[in-house]
Structures are given as structure tokens and as C-alpha cells.
């Protein structure tokens, strides 16, 4: 691809990185930003997450899919420090992140959004955005008392926030309460707010849930843009059209474990994935012998039914006489 077209080259670079990789769970990537090892989370007797080994390639868009209850969101919560794992460790840019509290995970550049959007309702849109900026001097109580110490920084933050809002087409709403936005606009605001943190890895938990189709395209565009700006994206999604459209690599979870990985165009025809979504034996007999046995049983049943029918007709006939 042409060097003067970065959009194409980033996607190409991401795809090239995945070229020829095996589709086994836990396959090693050329340049992983996030490496996860043996993460386990149990809720009483239920093992919600039991992931052996997973790597997320830097600069790519990776989708995490799986049937309901597969443990995708729980896994997200472990990685971002919102829930504590029972076992396992993971590194982000080579730094150990297990046991690190959520706010420190975010400071390291690993920022998430939520399945149920968390707009800060009684703050205005622009205040929501400003909150995302890191290392603000005015966030110290004593410095906060002296406006001169943080006014300049605040102006720079506001400028950056307004640029992002313009990009996400929310600039007209900047002085409205976030609580007055529609569901889709809240998703946009949450994504824009996450970008204020200037993350390296953006983790989106169901970015399309509850978004009307008209807004879906613009959200997709924004997600693709994140990769073009050099960020890595990991997202959970149910919408397979979206997964096929924007992801470079797909990781499939079922019953807490990673069962398959692969490129988006071929992953849905993978036998393990079909099994996970539809059940392994949803329509097929288990073996040739069993098939034969099922056939014989069915035939025997039919014959018995035919006999019974014959008998009952005879009896009915006798009664009539």
C-alpha cells in the first residue's frame, strides 16, 4: 500500500502481522501488547473464567466473541482491575498488571468502556470529557483552591476535549447534561472520554449494544480510526456483521475458556466455534453404530405403530357388527 495513505497501511500492517498464524487458542503474536496467562475466576462452584494463554497484537483490532455467559465481560473486568482474579497473571507492555487497582491500570494506558454506558449524568458533556485528562494539577485539593495553578492546563484540556467532541459530532451538545443524551450519543461520549486518557489499548465492552443502525456506521468508523491513530483495540461484541467488518483477529470464548482464534472471515466456519454456539451434537448422531441403532429404533417404532393401527381397526370393525 502507499505510504501516503496511512489508513490503508495501518490496516495492512495489522493484517500482515496475523498472516499465516495458526488458529489455535493462545497462539503467539509477533508483537503482543497484552499477554495473559492462566487467569482463573470462580464464583462459588462456577468457574466463570479459565483462560490459559492469550496474546493481543499491538496496533490491531481484536474482537472477543462468544455465546452469552462465556465469561467475556468477567475476563474484561479481571484485566482492567475491576474484579480480582483468583489466579493467573498478565502483562501490559511487559509490565505485570495482576493485582493492580483499576485506576492504576487506566493510568498505564489500558482504558475500558462499559457494557451499560456510564455517562456521568449530572455533569455536562464537556465536564465528562475534561475528567478523562490525566495528571491534572487542579485535582489536588490545595492546588484546586488556587485557580491560577490550573487555569492554563484546563484551557489546554478543554481544547483537546472540544477537538474530540467535534470528531465525535457531540460538540453541539457540549454544555448539555450527559444524562440528556440518547443511548447512542452516550456510547460516543464514553468512547471520546476514554480517548481523553490517551490510552494505548482501548477495551470496548459491547460498543454497539443498544445503538440504532444509523449510528452504528459512525461508531464503526470511530473504532477503525483508533487503529489508524496507532492504538490497539480489544472489543467484546455480539453483532457478527460488525466483527467481520472491522476486526483483524477474532478470539472466541466459551464457558470461560478461549476455544479458538482466527481471522474474522474464516472463524465462523471453525467447527469448535459452531459447536460452542449451537452445541456439539445439536443434530448429528455421535457415531456410525449409534446412527444405525437410531435408524433401527425408528423403524421398529414405525412397524409397532402400524401393527397397533391394524389391531385397533379390526377391533372397531368387530364392535360394529
Amino acid at each position, binding site marked *: 500500500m502507499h505510504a501516503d495513505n496511512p489508513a490503508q497501511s495501518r490496516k495492512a500492517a495489522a493484517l500482515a502481522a496475523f498472516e499465516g498464524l495458526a488458529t489455535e487458542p493462545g497462539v503467539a503474536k509477533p508483537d503482543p501488547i497484552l499477554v495473559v496467562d492462566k487467569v482463573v475466576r470462580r464464583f462459588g462452584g462456577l468457574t466463570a473464567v479459565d483462560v490459559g494463554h492469550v496474546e493481543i497484537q499491538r496496533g490491531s483490532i481484536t474482537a472477543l466473541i462468544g455465546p452469552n455467559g462465556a465469561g467475556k465481560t468477567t475476563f474484561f473486568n479481571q484485566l*482492567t482491575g*475491576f474484579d480480582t482474579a483468583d489466579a493467573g497473571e498478565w502483562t501490559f507492555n511487559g509490565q505485570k498488571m495482576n493485582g493492580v*487497582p*483499576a*485506576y*492504576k491500570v*487506566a*493510568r498505564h494506558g489500558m*482504558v*475500558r*468502556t*462499559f457494557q451499560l454506558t*456510564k*455517562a*456521568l*449524568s*449530572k*455533569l455536562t458533556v464537556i*465536564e*465528562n470529557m*475534561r*475528567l*478523562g485528562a*490525566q495528571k*491534572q*494539577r*487542579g*485535582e*489536588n*485539593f490545595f*492546588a*484546586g*483552591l*488556587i*485557580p491560577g495553578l*490550573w487555569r492554563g492546563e*484546563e484551557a489546554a484540556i478543554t481544547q483537546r476535549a472540544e477537538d474530540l467532541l467535534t470528531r465525535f459530532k457531540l460538540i453541539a451538545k457540549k454544555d448539555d*447534561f450527559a*444524562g*440528556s443524551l440518547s443511548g447512542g450519543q452516550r456510547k460516543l461520549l*464514553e468512547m471520546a*472520554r*476514554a480517548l*481523553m*486518557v490517551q490510552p494505548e489499548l482501548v477495551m470496548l465492552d459491547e460498543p454497539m449494544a443498544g445503538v440504532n443502525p444509523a449510528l452504528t456506521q459512525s461508531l464503526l468508523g470511530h473504532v477503525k480510526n483508533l487503529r489508524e491513530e496507532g492504538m490497539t483495540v480489544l472489543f467484546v461484541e455480539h453483532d457478527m456483521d460488525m466483527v467481520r467488518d472491522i476486526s483483524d483477529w477474532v478470539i472466541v470464548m466459551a464457558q470461560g475458556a478461549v476455544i479458538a482464534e482466527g481471522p474474522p472471515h474464516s472463524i465462523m466456519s471453525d467447527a469448535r466455534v459452531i459447536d460452542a454456539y449451537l452445541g456439539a451434537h445439536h443434530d448429528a448422531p455421535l457415531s456410525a453404530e449409534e446412527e444405525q441403532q437410531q435408524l433401527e429404533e425408528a423403524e421398529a417404532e414405525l412397524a409397532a405403530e402400524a401393527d397397533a393401527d391394524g389391531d385397533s381397526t379390526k377391533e372397531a370393525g368387530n364392535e360394529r357388527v
Partner: protein
Amino acid sequence: MDWILIFSRAVEAGIGSEAVIYCLAAIGLNVQFGYTGLLNFGQAAFVAVGAYSIATTVATFGLPLFLGVGIGLVLAVLLALLLGIPTLRLRADYLAIVTIAAAEIVRLVVRAVALKDTFGGTDGLQEFAGTFYGLNPYPEGNYVIPPFIGFDHRTMWILTVGWILVIAVSLLLFLVMRSPWGRVLKAIREDEDAVRSLGKNVFSYKMQSLVIGGVIGSLAGFIFALSRSSAQADLYSTDFTFFAYTVLILGGAARILGPIVGAAIFWFLMIFVKTGLEEAINKNVINFLNVNQVGAIQYMIIGLGLILLLIYRPQGIFGDKREIALDAR
């Protein structure tokens, strides 16, 4: 009926020492509940810590008053840390339970018979306010403020100090709540997980809010003890906290002027209704009640008024109706 008497008593209460005390206590709650969303139901404990710190330091140990003020501030910080460390990582309701219990513990400790020598039991402590009134710049006498209210020189002094404290604390909060620090607090009130995901140490901010609100509560305790020249355990029961919440919600939570106007109106109405009823009974305008029933009727009328306020103006006097509308979505 003597309307001048009724109005002068009510206005005096509206700017009097009760108003100052409840105003400061409600400002503390405003930081915790109004801005940060922390349900502190034990503000009475912080007020009691303030009052008993100066009373015990001076009356029991014979040390200077200002040392007592310092001890009160330090103890308020320690109490906030003690309450906050186990509960602030948990859901909001745990803090409510722990603080309401802690307030009762503090009250029962200072009124305990076993500690009578230190805290004075149910009689409380007296004779510690000498230093404070020694500093009184107002010469002895009565001060009439036109058109019809007036205070003696001691009340003038405590009100001057009290309202200066209220103004100073309000100015500080006005500055800090407009800053990025205040923005983090308000964001925590809305959704603390979202704030965590943006790299803010939510626990630390909640703790700062609890400590600041508690310290402001202890200021109310200083004024409470000094204005009465006495510290008595049973004044710091849970009623105190609930009246302070009433003041806050009446004025409008998360507004700088809310607690100030709330306290003034609350005490104006309390005394207006009380004096009005007493006058009406004494002048035989109302003849189906007697003076002993006024106390109960007063609370019924105030309670009815508050219910009507919450129905027709749920945001309080200074609140923004648009914010309440968001909750209904």
C-alpha cells in the same frame, strides 16, 4: 396577637446560633452527600467530637482553649479515617450504617457514668468558654438591630465568629468545587466505576471528602459548645444529623448557598410556628390546644411543610430542576 414579637423571635432564630450550628453541620454534609454522594448519617458524632474536645481540654484538664480547638480538628480527621477505611471500598449503604452506629457510640461514651470524671456524664461539661468570651470586643449590653431584633453582647460575639466561619468555609468550598478536584467528587457521586476507569483514585477522593466534611462538622461542634457554654451528650443524638440533612435538602444539595439559606429558613420557620402557636393560645385565638402541646404540633406542621416542599420543589430552594428531571429518566 403580637406579630412583632413573633417575627422578631423568628428572625432572631433565623440568624441565631442554632442557624449557624446547623448551617456548618449541613455544609459538612453537603461536601459528603451533596457533592460526593457519601451517606454520612453520623454528622452528630463529628459535632460532638468538636464540642467535647474543647470542653474536655479546658474544663477537665485545664489546658488552653485553642489547644482544644486543635485537638478537635485532629480528632475529627481521625474519626473520618476510622470510619472511612473499612467502609469506603464497600457500597454506599455500609457507610450509612457504620456512621449512624458510630454517632451513637460517641454519644454513649461521653455520657457514660464510668467516664463521668472526664466527660461529666449526662450533666456534661461547663465553664470552658471563659477564654472565648474574654476575647469579646462587644462591650456589655444589648444590641438592637433595626427594625425589631436584638441580641446581647455574648450572642453578638458568637454570631460574629460563627457567620465568619460559615462565610470562610463557603468561600473555600466555592473555590474548590469549581476546580478539577470538585469535578472528580461530582463524578464519583454519579458513577464511581466510570471515574476509576478514567484513572482516578476514587478511594482517596472519597476519604478526602469524608475528612473535610467531618472537620467542618467539628467547627459546628465548637460553636455549639461555646454558644451554650456547655457540652451535653444528649444534644448530639441522631436527631441532630437528620435536622442537618433537612437543612441541606431544604436549601438544595450540591449548592454553596444551599445550607446557609436552608438553615436560616428552617430555624425561622421552627420558631415562627412555635411562637405563633404560643401567642395564639395565650391570646385565646386558638382555644382547643394548650401551651404544652405546642412542641408536638410544631413538628407536625414543619413536617407537613417539608413533605409539600419535596413534592413541589424536590431540588430544594437553590437546586436545578433539570438535574432532578434526569433522575426520572
